[in-house]
């Protein structure tokens, strides 16, 4: 072959290969369309999914699984007959101590969980392989401003992001596939003891959350921000200001230091388009005399317009509270006994059913031993057993039941529409209490209380008929019930205790069918979801947290240890 011919052939080949490699459009552009673009977003959570979360057995997208906060799963792959075969499938170590108050949420085979100190993990639901991890550098001067441990209750899932509410009062939006920070905005001032421990609520384009830290006289609030930009949409103070209705329930200027934290995730009724948000105790905690009046809206559930944050109506559990009976516990929306109600287990030792259309009380029943109430009056208003159980300066008031832990602490209940029972984790203690004019707190004197003694007690998981409040069964324990509860269509009720026992009970009788010890106290909430066609049950382990009960940990710490981890269980093969 001559050199010329060779060159021609080579040139030809080059031209051909060039022609073949030139990209040609697969589809012809439709006429009149300027731009054609599509971005693939895996694990995208939509409003439709959240509004119908109760009908989605595979995922756990919201704090209480659905907007009603039922913590009920339609899954029955794991059931009464095979729960004995439940075994640990994987575990994830958080590398963090202190209280683990979180829960695993799951979408499409990816589990998202947080730990103390604001870490966030995303892991494969079947294998536990960590896909990404977010760690936050918290400011060194944060810790003096925190009252109650360094906990976090979990991330909200929405669209292509997960949302974390931080201890230093930021909301952080992370990419749900990579953990990259999309935006990070301060929402409060941690130097003034505004802090977040809450799992935010995603609702129709907004991320909604409330403050912690009433200990330091912070006037609490609930806010909604735009999910894409973090810009504030509305903000509602839990303590009304001058001129606002309810402000006159605070003598003098005491509304300024009202407290009223709002650190538990609210519930939403799409038909009534009402957002129910719980509010905590007033400050100062134990001296009701400097704040004469009912002290609205502390120890209250607020019914809000979700688009404007305006208060529609409310129900207050404990007016002018001297016991720190924090009314911040969650409300579970249920249609039961022919009524639309919310169910609520309160620190003040009672279980309530309240009409969620107008705030009228259906029934109130004791969760255990209670002695600070003489009786209930109009609309379940408590008539206080004073002076016998009043908290005073000049002496110790003995044996006040329940303690400020409750009743029921923040650990959430589960409601099963299958059994129509509400499953409530209870504490059963009494306290000897004296108000203090002078409590030496970090180099300064404050008004406070001396809890002289936490009298011996125990706990129980109790099942109440949701329509009537009648106690159906209980499972007593030598320790209080310190975890949230999960109820499933498989006829099971899951919960944990401070001894590390994670248990499954028969939802109709309370019989214990299975348990596994996770090696440290359980303070988080169990959840369940599927991946690869299999049902998993997850629980966060790790002792710690606020309240009086951890005072007992001193004994327990002699042989046990703190340590945070996530455990995921499945049926053995």
């Amino acid at each position, binding site marked *: 072959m001559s050199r010329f011919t060779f060159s021609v052939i080579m040139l030809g080949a080059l031209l051909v290969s060039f022609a073949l490699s030139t990209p040609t459009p697969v589809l012809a552009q439709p006429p009149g369309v300027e731009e054609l673009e599509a971005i693939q977003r895996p694990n995208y959570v939509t409003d439709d999914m959240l509004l119908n979360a109760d009908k989605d057995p595979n995922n756990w997208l919201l704090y209480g699984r659905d907007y009603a906060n039922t913590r009920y799963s339609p899954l029955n792959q794991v059931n009464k007959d095979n729960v004995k075969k439940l075994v640990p499938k994987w575990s994830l170590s958080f590398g963090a101590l202190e209280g683990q108050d979180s829960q695993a949420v799951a979408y499409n085979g990816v589990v998202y969980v947080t730990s103390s100190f604001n870490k966030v993990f995303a892991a494969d639901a079947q294998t536990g392989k960590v896909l990404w991890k977010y760690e936050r550098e918290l400011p060194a001067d944060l810790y003096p401003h925190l009252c109650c441990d360094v906990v976090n209750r979990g991330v909200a899932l929405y669209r292509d992001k997960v949302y974390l509410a931080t201890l230093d009062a930021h909301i952080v939006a992370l990419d749900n596939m990579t953990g990259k920070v999309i935006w990070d905005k301060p929402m409060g001032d941690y130097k003034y003891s505004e802090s977040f421990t809450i799992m935010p609520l995603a609702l129709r384009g907004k991320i909604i959350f409330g403050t912690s830290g009433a200990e330091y006289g912070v006037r609490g609030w609930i806010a909604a921000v735009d999910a894409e930009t973090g810009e504030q949409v509305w903000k509602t103070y839990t303590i009304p200001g001058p001129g606002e209705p309810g402000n006159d329930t605070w003598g003098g200027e*005491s509304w300024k230091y009202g407290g009223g934290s709002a650190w538990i995730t609210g519930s939403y009724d799409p038909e009534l388009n009402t957002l129910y948000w719980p509010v905590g105790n007033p400050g100062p905690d134990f001296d009701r005399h400097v704040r004469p009046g009912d002290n609205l809206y502390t120890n209250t559930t607020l019914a809000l317009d979700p688009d404007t944050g305006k208060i529609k109506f409310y129900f207050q559990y404990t007016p002018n509270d001297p016991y720190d009976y924090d009314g911040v516990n969650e409300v579970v929306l249920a249609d039961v006994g022919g009524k639309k109600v919310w169910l609520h287990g309160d620190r003040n030792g009672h279980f309530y059913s309240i009409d969620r259309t107008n705030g009228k009380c259906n029934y109130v029943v004791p969760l255990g031993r209670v002695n600070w109430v003489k009786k209930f009056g109009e609309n379940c208003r408590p008539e206080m057993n004073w002076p016998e159980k009043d908290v005073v300066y000049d002496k110790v008031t003995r044996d006040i039941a329940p303690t400020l832990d409750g009743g029921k602490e923040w650990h959430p209940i589960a409601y099963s529409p299958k059994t129509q029972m509400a499953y409530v984790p209870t504490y059963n203690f009494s306290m000897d209490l004296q108000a203090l004019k002078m409590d030496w707190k970090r180099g300064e004197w404050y008004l406070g209380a001396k809890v002289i003694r936490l009298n011996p007690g125990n706990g129980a998981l109790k099942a109440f008929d949701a329509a009537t409040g009648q106690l159906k069964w209980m499972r007593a324990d030598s320790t209080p019930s310190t975890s949230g509860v999960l109820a499933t269509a498989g006829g099971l009720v899951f919960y944990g205790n401070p001894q590390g026992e994670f248990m499954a009970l028969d939802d109709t009788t309370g019989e214990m069918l299975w348990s596994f010890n996770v090696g440290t106290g359980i303070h988080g909430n169990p959840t369940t979801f599927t991946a690869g066609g299999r049902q998993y049950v997850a629980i966060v382990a790790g002792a710690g947290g606020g309240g009086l009960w951890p005072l007992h940990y001193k004994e327990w710490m002699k042989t046990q240890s703190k340590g945070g981890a996530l455990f995921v269980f499945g049926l053995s093969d």
Partner: protein
Amino acid sequence: MKSHQKYFTPSCSIAFLVFLSVLVTFSTSKGAEEKSALERIKARGAIVFCADPYNFPFSVDNPGSPGFDIEIANLVAQKLGVRAQFFWIDTGTRGGLGRALRNSILEKKCDTFLGLPTGKEAEEEMEEKGLVLTKPYFGTGFVLMTRETNTAAMDLNSLKGKKIAVEMSTPADWYLFKNGYERSLYRFVPEILEAMDKGEVDVALVWAPMAGSSLKEHPESKAKLVENYVPEPTLRWNLAMAVRKEDQDLKETLSQVLEELSKGGQIKDVLSKYGVPFYPPFPEE
């Protein structure tokens, strides 16, 4: 040779053995008898102080400006001829001071706990826990702070009817409320300072250590503590150190050293570094 043999007669041997055993018993019983606190400290070459690392201006884990209690502790150690060491314990979390004491000095993590108030209630609590307080090393309380230039006749009585700024939930708040004064409530002392500079309020009843150190950090502020104001009897306390009940020798020694430092003016000097007014310990009621 003969005397040597005589020395080790059987009876002497027995006597010698008895002597040895007595010696051994005596020395082991002396060892079982705990060294006193001071002896431990001297043997160690260091005295360990418990302090809150987040308690400015009292104590803070920051060598640059460690707080007046830390500086006083260093002076005490110097006087004792040993090094000063610190065990940090947060007193601000749930459980407060009680929990901090249980987890630090009562677990023998330190020899003494800095900066605790005296007074009937405080001492009862100390007693319950098996702790005792040294003699106090200075007095403090809630004092008047003002923007006014003429403070000559300023005492609380003269302020009836006037709005007095006060930090909420403090005994000053309660005192003003119970005695019929007009309160203007604020969350923290720095907020009161801001309000005063904005002209929102003219006079305040504030916690001296907090107010003094805040003013020191804001020399441009027009506010100042009223000179020569003596806190009301129920709004003033003395500060002392706590030791374990069985360490009486340490308590006596610390009391003595602190009195020397107080009388010698060194405590006043340290406090004024931080802007905190010095009151000699108030007479106990």
